[in-house]
């Protein structure tokens, strides 16, 4: 067994005898660095936490951190470097869907193992990737269910023009129709192909869009008759001009709540929370979860930040958010699977993962499923003026389901 593990690891140098190499593949420079460096930080914290308790199968984790630099082809090269040169046992990484799509063939070619932690659009299941991320039915669909319960009858879809918002909104479009919402009550516009099939639902803006006057005027008109909500998949800092315009036009969260899928606690470090108070967020973890496990997690992370010597780590005003916790959970799930398999071998670890491995994380219990996704709790929160969320509803043990398109029967 140890021989197999050593073989799989390609143990060469002397200190590797009692360490196991683990890859961290995130953008530490470029546009995505703001979000992704937080994930590197939480991963390093988690490794230290595990190492302090004796490591995995008696081996200390030795992180190999590489920089994807917000450059998607570079992600593939770095992944290849991790797998071929460093021979890592597992990789934790990627944020954008396009970076994941870029490394996917590499992991399949070299039979690597990647844990992907950020909410995404689904419609994918690679045997070499485990998605600790929120699938669409663990974020967008519970949010819509909640709004329907609140008596919302009209939905306006808006997002940044790329794969995640487009796919998520198409799924939501089908879902809303199946819930009996008439087409004219779904705002933002539809695009159809020659055969009349809807290929795009919602209003899309380029990355970094700065002028939302026209869109907000449209939303104001759309919500004039009441009971309307906005489903927002705008990514990154374009949310600032959107919410500023929204507030300035006199719309409030009571007239027309906005539920956003890309704004977590971490984003509020750069967003004025004042403009978003009362609007909604939906994630599988909030920093405000009132549980001993979460309190301990936050305190431990802070203590680690205070004493860490990793260069370039921001130590002030740090928060925890869903992608961070899903990264953290990923490491522990992998650890549990390795211990269950008694080996670092990718095929054996995968078998253990598919057999169902659980971890009591800061956001509640998560369990792996046969379809490479997780069963976990989903929370809906309302933004407070300090950039935290107050939890107003939770859905327990939601099963992650990547393939949703075309599964909703029309009523």
């Amino acid at each position, binding site marked *: 067994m140890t021989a197999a593990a050593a073989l799989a690891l390609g143990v060469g140098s002397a200190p590797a005898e009692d360490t196991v190499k683990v890859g961290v593949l995130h953008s530490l420079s470029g546009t995505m660095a703001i979000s992704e460096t937080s994930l590197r930080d939480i991963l390093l914290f988690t490794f230290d936490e595990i190492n302090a308790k004796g490591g995995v199968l008696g081996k200390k984790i030795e992180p190999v951190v590489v920089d994807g630099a917000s450059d998607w082809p570079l992600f593939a090269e770095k992944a290849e470097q991790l797998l071929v040169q460093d021979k890592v046992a597992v990789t934790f990484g990627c944020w954008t869907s396009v970076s994941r799509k870029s490394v996917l063939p590499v992991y399949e070619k070299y039979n690597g193992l990647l844990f992907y932690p950020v909410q995404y659009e689904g419609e994918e299941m690679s045997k070499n990737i485990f998605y600790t991320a929120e699938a669409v039915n663990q974020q967008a669909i519970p949010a819509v269910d909640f709004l329907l319960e609140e008596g919302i009858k009209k939905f306006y879809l808006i997002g940044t*023009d790329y794969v995640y918002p487009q796919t998520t909104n198409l799924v939501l479009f089908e879902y809303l129709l199946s819930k009996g919402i008439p087409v004219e009550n779904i705002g933002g*516009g539809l695009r159809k192909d020659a055969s009349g099939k809807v290929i795009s639902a919602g209003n899309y803006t380029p990355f970094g869009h*700065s002028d939302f006057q026209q869109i907000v005027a449209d939303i104001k008109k759309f919500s004039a008759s009441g009971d309307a909500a906005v489903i927002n998949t705008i990514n990154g800092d374009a949310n600032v001009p959107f919410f*500023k315009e929204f507030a300035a036009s006199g719309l409030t969260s009571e007239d027309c709540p906005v539920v956003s899928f890309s704004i977590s606690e971490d984003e509020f470090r*750069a967003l004025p929370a004042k403009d978003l108070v009362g609007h909604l967020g939906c994630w599988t973890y909030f920093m405000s979860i009132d549980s001993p496990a979460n309190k301990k997690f936050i305190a431990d992370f802070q203590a680690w930040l205070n004493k860490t010597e990793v260069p370039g780590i921001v130590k002030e005003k740090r928060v925890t958010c869903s992608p961070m916790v899903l990264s953290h959970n990923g490491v522990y799930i992998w650890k549990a699977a390795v211990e269950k398999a008694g080996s670092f071998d990718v095929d054996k670890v995968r078998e253990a993962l598919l057999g169902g491995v659980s971890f009591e994380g800061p956001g509640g219990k998560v369990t792996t499923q046969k379809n490479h996704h997780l069963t976990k709790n989903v929370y809906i929160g309302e933004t407070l003026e300090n950039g935290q969320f107050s939890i107003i509803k939770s859905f327990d043990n939601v099963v992650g389901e990547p393939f949703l398109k075309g599964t909703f029967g029309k009523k």
Partner: protein
Amino acid sequence: MSLWAGLAAFAGLGWSHATEEEARELLASIVLTSGEEQAQAVEALGGHGDSIIGTVIEAWRVGGISSYTPPGGTGKIALLKEPEGYTDIATGEKVVPQGDPVTIRPSRALRKTLKKVADLLDLASPDPAARIAAAEKLGLSQNPDYLPVLRDRLEMQTNPKVRRAFDEAVNISLLANGTPQEQLAAVTALGNLRSYPARDLIEALRVKNAEAADDDGAAPESRAHAAAMQAAAVEALGQIDGHQKVVEVYGTLFRGLSLGSVLLLVAYGLAITFGLMGVINMAHGEFIAIGGYTVYLVQGWFATTFGEGTAGYETYFLWALPASFLVAAFFGIILERGVIRFLYKRPLESLLATWGISMILQQAFRLHFGAANVAVASPQWLSSSFEVAGVTMSYNRLFVIGFALFVIVATWLLLTRTSWGLHVRATMQNRQMASSLGVRSARVNMLTFAFGSGLAGLAGAFISQIGNVGPSMGQTYIVDSFMVVVIGGVGNLAGAALSSLGIGMVDQSLQPLLGPVMGKITVLLAIILFLQFKPGGLFPARSRSLDD
């Protein structure tokens, strides 16, 4: 006093007779209870109108009420948080709590009830805008309970705008709650009012009545009524849609004007440094960022000095505007003295040098302020809006339009009505000739560049109110700036004004038709085509020098 006894006594007295003390005591007891009883008690408050009730309800809704157990006291008391401190709701006395009182956060369901009560109270508000908003909401709820209140209040309104809102609300409510005759009259009335909020409801009635009119099994009189309803609905929809088209045209004009003003502010500094002086200033965007960061610093200073949300804090933006101009102008002087004055005859080198400086500045922002954007909150007076004939005009947009006008006029006066302006124009036309005639051209160069940089700083200050402030914010605007200047005709300030307005208008008119992504692409394509046919821009510079 138990809650119900208190409420009953209160209702029995009628609010005009209830003393403020009684109202206060009752409110305090409601705030500190919970559950079903609390929701019902809150709902019952809607019939009363003491101003303290409105204040407390509004504060409660937004998290401004706290519970607090004073040391040595008899139990919990409810506190109202005001900018100048805490007040005990029950007694109206000021309280200085030790430690932080616990905020009482109403649940989402209770907040809805609170909002409804606030709206009911607002029907009698002295502020016309609050009355209008309240009437609109209660009307749209189509709750039959509110119909009598709305009707009573309608008679009392003298302000025509408020009267219109109440009229609209009554008619919308009648659509659901009136007799068939009233319904018919309401549809016609709403059509005459051009009521957009009622559009969906009327459309639903039209569909319903079209089916009823075709129903052979129904009684002839009900079929006749349905047919009349259908006809009235079709007419009303025509009126509403026709009006909406007009509103949209005006709205697009306004939005085009405001986008044009933003572009103008962003590009005007460049029109001076690049257009007039001929310096290809790639660091223009970073001067915009300097303006944005100055606002951030000024905001921080006001927040610590006056405290957030105070009247003093609200004025921070007015001080930040001149500050951002001066700071950016100061950096402009450094750049001109340190680098650019050696490069006036070498435009290509000035491009490379300023590009390098732009990168240095971006890294400097990252080092000093961090890689993430910084949050700049807009003052309250800039983040609200009003409506003129259905077009929403937000104050920050009006402010930018006025400000752009001010910048154009001030620059024009400065360049054409002052002796400094004369020297600037002379120097820019021919540096050697001007200096041989006694103009201190080095000084003129420096101040002109500083002025252009200062204008960029002002643009950044404004952008902080509608967008992001971050290390790479300049990059977002540098392309737009060059676009505006080149389209307008290099060296022509009026051309820059006209081209920014034109680009803003075209962009906003295309967006509703093509969407933001295709709209942007179309605008850029149109600009390429335009430059193919008019490479000198709208107003090409005419020159007698031989090398042109």
